[in-house]
């Protein structure tokens, strides 16, 4: 079994974590199927995955909200199943849907939340003002939450998770619904928290967010972690550059082009992706002319061509055989749905 004491800097230790839900008509959904996670103190750890991958389910188990199916989870030095109350006192959690109350004002919500964490009236009031400044809630803190815009509400949600200055902070898709400016501001706040020693575990389906913010990323799909490492490590595993070829004439052209390009020594990997061909090449500058010449010789027409450095999406594609974009998640807030 795991000995936590061997890793004093280990803040989250998860072994063989599983959870299944019994759905209607006896069908069970295996939401989380054997997840291992180690998060170190002061780290920003990201969970990247498409809708339904099991991100929220994992987070809810780690935050004591959902009984663990099987496996063990140790958070902030405490066993989640055995000492839920101690875990709760040490962690903060911002859920995907938030938790602000329409009938309260933002300030009232913060004051109540602080008191529920055990703070006395004076220190909670001080902390509330501090958070209102930090997350820029001043303009609307005295209004009912029902009147807030999506982004204002999201910032309040984040503030609610921070009232008690937790050692470990869980954020479930924190930047959903934020405009680029507020997103950048939130990222800065998260960096500040890390600098102050807070450990942060966040989920996202924004590749750029995982890339910009996280020290390490676990890619999760269908309840399993399929890849783990720093963003740059993960990208390095996808060698070279990616070329996206969008062909003019549908399925036949794809088959023809695949047969043509796959045997080339400059092409490391090739996959067809509804109407497009994606290939990885060592050196784009060298490969592109050769590819184009070959396609032209065989009269295969092109809509567009795109050469790019690998992104986490390429990592995702490589490990799951699907593109993260195809699963409904986007690259930035434009693709967001709440």
């Amino acid at each position, binding site marked *: 079994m795991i000995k936590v004491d061997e890793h004093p800097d280990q803040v989250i230790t998860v072994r063989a974590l599983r959870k299944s*839900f019994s759905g209607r008509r006896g069908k069970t959904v295996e939401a989380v199927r054997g997840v291992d996670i180690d998060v170190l103190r002061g780290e920003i750890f990201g969970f990247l995955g498409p809708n339904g991958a099991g991100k929220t389910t994992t987070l809810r188990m780690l*935050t*004591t*909200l*959902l*009984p663990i199916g099987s496996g063990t989870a140790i958070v902030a030095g405490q066993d989640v199943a055995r000492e839920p*109350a101690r875990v*709760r*006192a040490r*962690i903060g*959690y911002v*859920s995907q*849907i*938030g*938790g*602000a*109350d*329409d*009938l*309260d004002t933002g300030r*009232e919500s913060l004051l*109540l*939340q602080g*008191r*529920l*964490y*055990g703070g006395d009236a004076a220190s909670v009031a001080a902390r509330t003002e501090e958070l209102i400044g930090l997350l820029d809630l001043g303009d609307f803190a005295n209004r009912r939450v029902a009147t807030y815009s999506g982004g204002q509400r999201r910032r309040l949600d984040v503030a*609610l998770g921070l009232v008690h200055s937790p050692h470990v902070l869980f954020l479930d898709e924190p930047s959903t619904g934020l405009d680029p400016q507020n997103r950048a501001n939130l990222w800065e706040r998260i960096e500040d928290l890390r600098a102050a020693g807070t450990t942060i575990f966040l989920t996202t389906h924004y590749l750029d967010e995982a890339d910009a913010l996280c020290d390490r990323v676990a890619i999760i799909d269908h309840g399993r972690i399929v890849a783990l490492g720093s963003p740059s490590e993960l990208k390095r595993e996808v060698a070279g550059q990616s070329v996206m070829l969008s062909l003019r004439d549908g399925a036949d052209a794809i088959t023809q082009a695949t047969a043509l390009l796959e045997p080339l020594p400059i092409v490391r990997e090739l996959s067809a992706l509804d109407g497009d061909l994606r290939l990885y090449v060592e050196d784009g500058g060298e490969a592109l002319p050769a590819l184009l010449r070959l396609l032209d010789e065989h009269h295969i027409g092109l809509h567009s061509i795109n050469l790019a450095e690998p992104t986490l999406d390429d990592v995702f594609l490589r490990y799951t055989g699907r593109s993260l974009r195809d699963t409904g998640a986007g690259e930035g807030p434009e693709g967001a749905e709440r």
Partner: protein
Amino acid sequence: MTLARDTLLLARRSLIHALRNPVWLFVGVSTPLLYLALFAPLLKHYIAHGNVLDEFLPGILSLMAFASGSGQGFGTIFELRAGVIERFRVTPASRLAILVAPILASMLMMFVFDALLVAVGAAFGFGVHWLGLLVLAVLLGLLMMMWAAFSIAMALLTKEISAFAAVINGLNLPVLLLAGVLLQISVGPEWMRVLAHFNPLYYVVEASRSLAAGSFGSDHVWQAFAVLVPLCALVLAWATRVFRTAVA
């Protein structure tokens, strides 16, 4: 003590929410008054002696306690949807406090409406026995707490409004009909009288008439407490358990 502290904090919030909703206050006040105004006159012919309100008003008080208990889960469904329940559950606050605080706030409102109803009833000839009404208040509190905890637990288990409404309304109707709230069960056939003894509301309604008349010695009174106290404790324990585990 964290239970008392958390309960107070959360009950205060629920009370403020109730006061911010004037429509709800209006309905709360007008419903029992409508019963008095539009139903009590119909009963006149069925009651041989005494003021009709002596018979009828205690039943309405029991009905209000029951109704305010069963409606509690609707608020829970909304708070579940809004993530508010999770926001509370992730704090170290006492689970029991999260469960009972909104119930206590509703109960306080209920007692205010009850007092209003008694005052109006007294003006129309309802005989007020202070001590009896005080003991009745305890009984009504137990009934409301029991049924509200059940309602909240059902809300947590069904998680969505239509399933919850179906369950709670499906249960309310037989319980109400078999309690003798509007007309006494004793005028009904034998099988009804037997069945009624499995209905907690029946005991409260019977005891409420005795208590309102000031007859503490009546068997109805101790029977009602003997049924309600353990039942309330049992339902609370179960609902707290549901709170701890079944919220998904």
